[in-house]
């Protein structure tokens, strides 16, 4: 291997690693706050990447149907509870949040799709379609089970993953799509040719991580999320609603998933089920980081990216095998270290 290839592999690894780091952060956040192992994270990547590619082609992405159907389902559940409790005053809010908002976004996207607006407008449209899916998903699948055990929540996650993958196949079909790069330039850095797209990915990931960090440190809602992750009983006793933190963490996870999808779309060809693999690698990154610390998870994810890139050079057929084998020693170490995994029930 010469120096060129070595540096190129590093660039490739860091670019992918940055995205895995984002996903790892989302997984850790959702798990710490809601105890949900968020398997369907990958579907948010798929939805946003494919939506962006379709919008670029001037076609209407099926995501808007998923959004409207999901919104209606969530609205029905909320309305049922409100009617049973005779809380009529909640109905307008439910209608606005779960029916009007999704329908408005869907109409907007359907109108904008054939008009092929600028790329940054398309990115905003994709975010508007995908991000609300997070809270909607939480409302439908997880909120009714907020006190269930980690295992039950995990089984729900698997079910949600299969349902969303199915929907993805129905609405996007089985063709692979790729979107245009945001910035189609190359820089020479010594011997290395750096693509502008990789810089975009790394910078965008860093900015998003910094924004999240700022929110967690300085906003009352960010603090409420951290407090819930630290002490569930304490959080309830100071009046932080479980439903609120659930919605917030899923909102952030959906945002992270959507941004990752947008960043990946120009680098990789994505199919209706590709996102899952990305989510899984974020998960490996989080595990490598010990499943607890955000900075370590980010480092672990970069390691996953590098490992993947180098193993695809030396043993490309075994690329995934090598990456996923890595978690076995890590899991063994984690389980030795904490003999007793806490299923915290108050």
């Amino acid at each position, binding site marked *: 291997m010469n120096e060129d290839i070595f540096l190129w592999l590093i660039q490739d690894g860091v670019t992918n690693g940055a995205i895995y780091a984002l996903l790892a952060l989302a997984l850790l956040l959702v798990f710490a706050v809601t105890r949900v192992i968020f398997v369907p994270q990958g579907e948010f990547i798929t939805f946003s990447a494919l939506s962006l590619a379709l919008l670029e082609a001037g076609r209407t992405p099926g995501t808007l149907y998923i959004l409207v159907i999901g919104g209606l389902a969530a609205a029905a559940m909320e309305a049922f509870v409100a009617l049973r409790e005779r809380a009529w005053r909640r109905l307008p809010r439910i209608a606005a949040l779960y029916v009007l908002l999704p329908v408005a976004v869907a109409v907007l996207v359907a109108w904008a799709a054939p008009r092929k607006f600028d790329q940054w407008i398309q990115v905003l449209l994709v975010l508007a379609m995908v991000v609300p899916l997070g809270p909607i998903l939480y409302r439908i699948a997880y909120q009714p089970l907020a006190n269930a055990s980690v295992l039950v929540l995990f089984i729900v996650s698997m079910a949600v993953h299969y349902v969303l993958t199915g929907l993805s196949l129905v609405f996007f079909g089985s063709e692979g799509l790729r979107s245009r790069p945001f910035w189609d330039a190359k820089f020479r850095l010594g011997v290395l040719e750096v693509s502008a797209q990789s810089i975009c990915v790394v910078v965008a990931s860093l900015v998003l991580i910094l924004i999240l960090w700022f929110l967690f440190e300085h906003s*009352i809602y960010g*603090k*409420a999320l*951290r*407090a819930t992750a*630290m*002490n569930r*009983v*304490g*959080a*309830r*006793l*100071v*009046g*932080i*609603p*479980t439903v609120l933190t659930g919605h917030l963490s899923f909102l952030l996870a959906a945002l992270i998933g959507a941004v990752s999808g947008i960043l990946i779309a120009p680098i990789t060809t994505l199919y209706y089920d590709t996102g899952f693999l990305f989510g899984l690698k974020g998960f490996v990154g989080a595990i490598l980081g010990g499943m607890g610390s955000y900075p370590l998870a980010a480092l672990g994810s970069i390691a996953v990216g590098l490992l993947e890139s180098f193993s695809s050079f030396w043993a490309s057929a075994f690329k995934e095998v090598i990456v996923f084998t890595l978690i076995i020693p890590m899991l063994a170490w984690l389980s030795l270290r904490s003999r007793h995994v806490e299923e915290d029930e*108050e």
Partner: protein
Amino acid sequence: MSAALEVEGLSVAYGKVEALHRASLRVPEGSIVTVIGPNGAGKTTLLGAIMGLLASRGTLRYAGAALEGLPTEDRVARGMCLVPERRELFAGMSVEDNLLLGAFHRRGAGARALAADMTEVYGRFPRLAERTRQLAATLSGGERQMLALGRALMAKPRLLLLDEPSLGLAPRVVREIFRIIADLKRTGVSMLLVEQNARAALQVADYGYVLEIGDIVMEGPAAGLAGHPRVIETYLGLSAKTSQPD
């Protein structure tokens, strides 16, 4: 007098074992009511059920409104607050953030009001004021107790439930805690106080209940209970036992 809290026939079970049997009690508006009893009597269980942390059978009314089915956070939003036995602080966060989160349900009150409340809490507990940036996990046991009480004060409760607020504290701090309790009473806060330190509890309270193995076996005005031979023998004792290590 109208009641801040009415508990009727409240039963709580852990699995098949019932820890509280059809307990009934009443906290009149603006008064301090204490529940005393030996270890394992079900005092903590009672408070947990009142806050909705534990599932229970029976009726619970707060300020006249039924509480059944209401999640804990809604009870907090209505003005109830518990200082739990295990304190349940946010260990990885600073003293200041813990206090700030205590006022979570009042987050709309405005930064200035919250800052004023925070200053008041620091005024009551100077030890906390010296440690605003320190993580809750690194506080001493006594400081942790102060933080738990301070966090509850930040919620501006109408009904405060206290589970052994003086546990393991130095006598001077215990006096400070009981002074705060008396102060709060003057501002109209109703309180349900659980204490091992029965002597101090009966002194500050208006009314008392004795809970033994899940049953309320005795009740009466605090002064009367403090003079009752059985209470004297079992809970006040001859030795000046003040608190029990956890």
